[in-house]
């Protein structure tokens, strides 16, 4: 009973809220362009399904490419920083400044550099910038998180720097890397959508463009449809990476 209730609870709440929304829209005669009822949003999703799916894939693929790019750069830099404390001192303030700079603020610049005809490049670059930090800071923290007594053991047996990195620091960093990638995946989606908004309609065909397009035509139900798909996309990606993190940790710990 309680397990069933636990499984059903979130869906029950959603159904309840949607029902209230639908009833309120009908009872109060809210204009559709202001707030469409859920039934209208559902109709919009059904009608736009092929193009929504294409756009969702567009946004997702750019976010995933950005995640891969960010992952490679962040882990590479974290390794370099882990090997050289002086490099870490040099990089840290720069990294902090870049991290607190909002992605919307640098988006127009990156658009110019990528060239207005190459909006996807700019979108990938911007999403990668956002996804970079959780992986980088996770990796830097993780590389320092080894058990100090294990570090002493490596001292005792005269381990080389490379041995220490490959056999102690990198494996110790695995849980931090998993967590960093999970957080970064969500941020990559957000980064891609924000960048799509800045890019406008020029060549980018992601979900943000669907929202913009519908907004320009005051087709509020279609805006909602794109937002719903975006939410589902983010939730699915998060769930997938959550499962990957759990599996990765179980493998790492052997239990």
């Amino acid at each position, binding site marked *: 009973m309680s397990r069933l209730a636990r499984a059903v609870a979130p869906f029950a709440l959603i159904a309840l809220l949607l029902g209230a929304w639908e009833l309120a829209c009908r009872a109060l005669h809210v204009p559709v362009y202001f707030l469409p009822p859920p039934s209208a949003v559902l109709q919009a999703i059904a009608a736009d399904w092929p193009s929504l799916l294409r756009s969702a894939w567009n946004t997702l693929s750019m976010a995933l490419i950005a995640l891969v790019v960010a992952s490679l750069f962040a882990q590479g830099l974290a390794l370099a920083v882990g090997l050289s404390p002086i490099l870490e001192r040099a990089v840290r303030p720069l990294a902090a400044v870049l991290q607190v700079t909002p992605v919307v603020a640098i988006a127009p610049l990156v658009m110019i550099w990528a060239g207005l005809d190459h909006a996807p490049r700019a979108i990938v670059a911007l999403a990668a910038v956002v996804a970079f930090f959780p992986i980088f800071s996770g990796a830097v923290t993780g590389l320092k998180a080894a058990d100090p007594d294990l570090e*002493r053991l490596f001292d005792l*047996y005269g381990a080389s720097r490379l041995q220490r990195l490959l*056999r102690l620091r990198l*494996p110790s960093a695995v849980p931090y890397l998993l967590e960093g990638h999970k957080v970064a995946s969500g941020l990559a989606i957000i980064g891609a959508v924000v960048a799509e908004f800045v890019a406008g309609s020029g060549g980018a065909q992601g979900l943000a463009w669907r929202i913009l397009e519908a907004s320009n035509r005051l087709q509020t139900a279609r805006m909602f449809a794109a937002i719903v798909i975006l939410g589902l996309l983010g939730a699915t990606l998060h769930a997938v990476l959550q499962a990957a993190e759990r599996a990765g940790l179980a493998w790492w710990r*052997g*239990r």
Partner: protein
Amino acid sequence: MIAALSEVEIDYPRGRALGPFSLAIAAGEIVALVGPSGCGKSTAMRLLAGLEAPSRGEVARTPGRGETAVVFQAPTLAPWLSARANAALPLELAGVAHAEAARRAEAALARVGLAGAEGARPAQLSGGMAMRVSLARALVTEPKLMLLDEPFAALDEITRRALADDILELWAEARPGIVFVTHNVEEAVYMASRVVVMTAGPGRTAGEVAVEGPLPRPQGYRITQGFRAQVEAVSARLAQGMAA
């Protein structure tokens, strides 16, 4: 003589941690180091291991690279490695071929009574078994000097007694020099042929008690008159040292 501290002192920014303190370990000897918490026992161990240099005084060590082994309070195993790979680690770091290292690690695990658990991860082992893996890792290089830093601190009474006897039997096979740090007086007397008592921090020598009787200990040793008397003698020194 296999390792010796002579008049060593260690100063940390927050103040003196140890000394002046002298201690010499003969080859094949088991010395227990007893003292109140914070007296610098673990610091003395790091000096003997060559992991730290003294602020003043001298450290002399004869064991070469890989001939000193340390067992910490916690098992200190790598969670991502199997028991076999954990025990093989010192050999792998010394460049021993992988297959050879695994074979010797399995032999070391068998010596500590863990045959059959080679593939288990630390998370799958009990506290006592994990400590045995840690012991196997220390034994795998056939060390000349073993430093045991309160290795039973996290174990229950039954497990610690069994492990104490096993360590003494393992010692009897190859007779490495052993320094055994503890704050448990009975354990010190049981394990060692010589108990060095330290004062409250910064630790100095408060006294030394030679323990008679055969090593490994025969059954019922804990209830003999001699054992009880020596425990009392060490306890008295410890009390003096803490008052001083």
